[in-house]
């Protein structure tokens, strides 16, 4: 069964045959996969999902890939949704949950989207995976390409964190470090994608790739016993993830898995040093003004976010808010999450938790409301960000006396501030 019927421009509604297309040929708008939801509704149920694998592929019926295509699969998705009572108590949130996407195969949510993108690439007969990346996508493309025996050519800004560079190069792909910021890399890749028959995850695979993020919404609702949260807090880089989380929430009702439409408010989080979407939200305008990023949250440092306009729209339509935190607040939030819930996140997760704290302080969440925050990537990828504040308490010789002298036993932290 060919699941998606066509690709449709989100801007001007022109339609295209399914293929590795970049954007609408007329207005350059993003292309969206159009599903036959009635057919999907007839074949999908909570039971068929429960019988599926513990990966994103349990929701294969709602992903833009034909059933017969061999999947490029490292086991992404179906990550833990954990209650976070200790962080909730610190922030004054009654019912807080964390979607822990740090435990994906390459330690970020990007495994979800890449598993879909490279599977679709195979369907199109493309044999080289590629991407422009702030790091997490690079890791995921290189690893999935290795597993699938595909070639990979990955482009990153040259000043990326060491962890993200190593965790890409190790998989044996071609890794091109570009002297410039992410927007420069992206621009170069848009031109390269014109010249080579490669599957660029975020360029000509974009319409399929981004659909992988819907699985975050599917899993959250399923893991909450098929109920919607009242709020979800999502980091914004290009904005695609937030837009697709919202789309996922809506689809659950569309295909009959949920009896009522989603009431979830979708909130967005950005870093002050790269806040084009947050800034547009605060100004109350539709137009997202590009910025030159300057933040430690490099995985969110997209100054010209392609889905920024739609992220704004999704947030406004669901009654959500967008806020931002500065670099110090990001580091504070990383440490707060680690010491309260035992999860070490990268800077993007710091942005999410920092904004979660701000929203809570502003009274966004009413008593008893259920809040889910997406922790999208793992802390070892960006150790530089917290290294100065995460050091040994003492360095001693292996002598008992020295230990008792230098360490105040009564003062050993127990996770309290």
């Amino acid at each position: 069964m060919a699941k998606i019927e066509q690709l449709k421009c989100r801007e001007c509604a022109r339609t295209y045959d399914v293929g590795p297309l970049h954007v609408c040929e007329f207005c350059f708008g993003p292309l969206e996969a159009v599903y036959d939801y009635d057919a999907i509704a007839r074949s999908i149920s909570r039971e068929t999902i429960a019988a599926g694998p513990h990966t994103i592929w349990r929701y294969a019926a709602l992903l833009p890939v034909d059933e017969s295509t061999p999947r490029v699969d490292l086991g992404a998705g179906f990550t833990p949704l954990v209650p976070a009572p200790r962080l909730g108590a610190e922030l004054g949130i009654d019912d807080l949950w964390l979607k822990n996407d740090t435990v994906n195969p390459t330690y970020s949510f990007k495994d979800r989207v890449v598993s879909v993108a490279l599977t679709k690439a195979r369907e199109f007969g493309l044999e080289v995976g590629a991407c422009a990346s702030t790091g997490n996508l690079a890791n995921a493309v290189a690893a999935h390409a290795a597993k699938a025996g595909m070639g990979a050519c990955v482009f990153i800004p040259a000043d990326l964190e060491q962890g993200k560079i190593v965790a890409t190069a190790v998989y044996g792909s071609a890794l091109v470090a570009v002297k410039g910021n992410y927007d420069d890399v992206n621009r170069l890749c848009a031109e390269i994608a014109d010249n080579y028959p490669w599957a660029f995850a975020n360029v000509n695979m974009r319409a399929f790739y981004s659909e992988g993020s819907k699985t975050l919404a599917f899993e959250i609702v399923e893991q909450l016993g098929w109920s919607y949260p009242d709020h979800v807090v999502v980091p914004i880089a290009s904005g695609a993830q937030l837009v697709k989380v919202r789309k996922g929430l809506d689809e659950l009702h569309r295909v009959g898995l949920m009896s009522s439409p989603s009431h979830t408010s979708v909130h967005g989080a950005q870093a002050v040093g790269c806040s084009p979407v947050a800034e547009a939200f605060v100004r109350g305008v539709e137009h997202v003004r590009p910025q030159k990023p300057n933040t430690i949250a490099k995985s969110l440092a997209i100054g010209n976010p392609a889905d920024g306009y739609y992220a704004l729209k999704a947030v406004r339509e669901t009654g959500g808010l967008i806020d931002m935190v500065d670099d110090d607040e990001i580091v504070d939030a990383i440490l707060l999450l680690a010491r309260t819930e035992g999860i070490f996140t990268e800077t993007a997760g710091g942005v999410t938790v920092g904004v979660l704290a701000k929203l809570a302080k502003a009274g966004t969440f009413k008593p008893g409301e259920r809040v889910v925050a997406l922790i999208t990537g793992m802390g070892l990828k960006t150790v530089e960000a917290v290294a100065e504040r995460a050091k040994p308490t003492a360095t001693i010789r292996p002598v008992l006396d020295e230990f008792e002298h230098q360490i105040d036993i009564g003062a050993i932290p127990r996770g309290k501030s």
Partner: protein
Amino acid sequence: MSVKIRIPTPLRKLTKEQAEVEAGGGTIREVVDDLERQFPGFKERMCDDNGELRRFVNVYVGEEDIRFLEGLDTKIPSGELVSIIPAVAGG
């Protein structure tokens, strides 16, 4: 003044598959008007009904996005390449 412009794939049907074309003009606005004369229908693809640059069209003079400069009124220094590039998703 003659300016070189790099054309992305989605617009090449208009430019008879040429990846690079030349146009006259001192600003982006003048260049777009000249491209419209050479390749009828070009301006509609670049600009919306109000004559503003479409949301997902990025234009660069050299390495700089014209949204950081003077928009459509950005002047093009002699010899500088103009590139038209669709916005890209990412992360």
